[in-house]
């Protein structure tokens, strides 16, 4: 079972990485020109426009099955609430994306041709993720609402 899930993971990663490269997402200048409306190159909108309907079909197909081909169950995020973490986190992510032109996928996918700026980005991203994990754990300890308990 473990061998099969590993092979599926590898195949999915290859498709994803090839897709990012073919689409132009591993060219940060193109990403910046997509996000910068003053010299707009709208190409990359087509990446999502093509990926989303194909993915929607995958989820609809899967909904009719009891379990994945090689696994016990389908795993999807369970949270439904629009909480502060989601909104603050997404805003910070957008800020970082618009600053450098890298989101996590293309940054990792560019590792075969890495240079110092890319490695700096990836190291800082890893630190940021560990930091977010610590913040999340602290909030979890402070209760479900994530509010600090104030004693008067």
């Amino acid at each position, binding site marked *: 079972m473990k061998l099969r899930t590993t092979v*599926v993971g590898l195949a999915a990663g*290859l498709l994803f990485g090839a897709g990012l490269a073919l*689409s132009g997402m591993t060219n940060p200048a193109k990403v910046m020109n997509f996000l910068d409306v003053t010299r707009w190159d709208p190409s990359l909108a087509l990446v999502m426009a093509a990926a989303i309907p194909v993915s*929607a079909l995958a989820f609809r197909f899967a909904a009719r099955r009891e379990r994945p081909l090689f696994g016990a169950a389908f795993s999807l995020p369970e949270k439904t609430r629009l909480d502060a973490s*989601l909104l603050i986190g997404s805003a910070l992510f957008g800020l970082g994306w*618009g*600053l450098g032109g890298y989101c996590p996928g293309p940054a990792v996918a560019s590792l075969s041709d890495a240079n110092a700026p890319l490695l700096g980005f990836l190291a800082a991203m890893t630190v*940021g*993720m560990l930091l977010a994990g610590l913040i999340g754990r602290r909030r979890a300890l402070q209760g479900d609402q994530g509010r600090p308990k104030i004693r008067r």
Partner: protein
Amino acid sequence: MRTSFTPAAAAAGGLFIGASVWVLFVGIGRIPGISGIVRGLLRRGEGAGDRAWRGAFLVGLILGPVLASAAAGRPLIRPDPASTPVLAAAGLLVGVGTGLANGCTSGHGVCGVSRLSPRSLAATALFMACGFLTASVLRRLL
């Protein structure tokens, strides 16, 4: 630096990404959210089976562009013109942000939006808006 409008290549790449969602979700019931896959590897106590597919996915993610470049006959990975300090700051924001939001362009933007998840729709609207605002306006004020 100007870049030319390449809708066919962008859409073709998007189809590959959609195919990746098919393989991973129908195959093993997981979604290809890159920040989530990386964070899973950073967590301690993750099951060995989970580490294996996550690690294999990242190996594929790195090799995919190598194969695509060979097929295209030109290098598809281009360097970022931004400086190392700017990219380090950007990386920190991307890491903290995707960690707090539980997803990035792939997990929320592609997978979540295609399931019409309210959290992902809100996250995607927000990070797109902030991305456009930063690239178009804010970074010029630095």
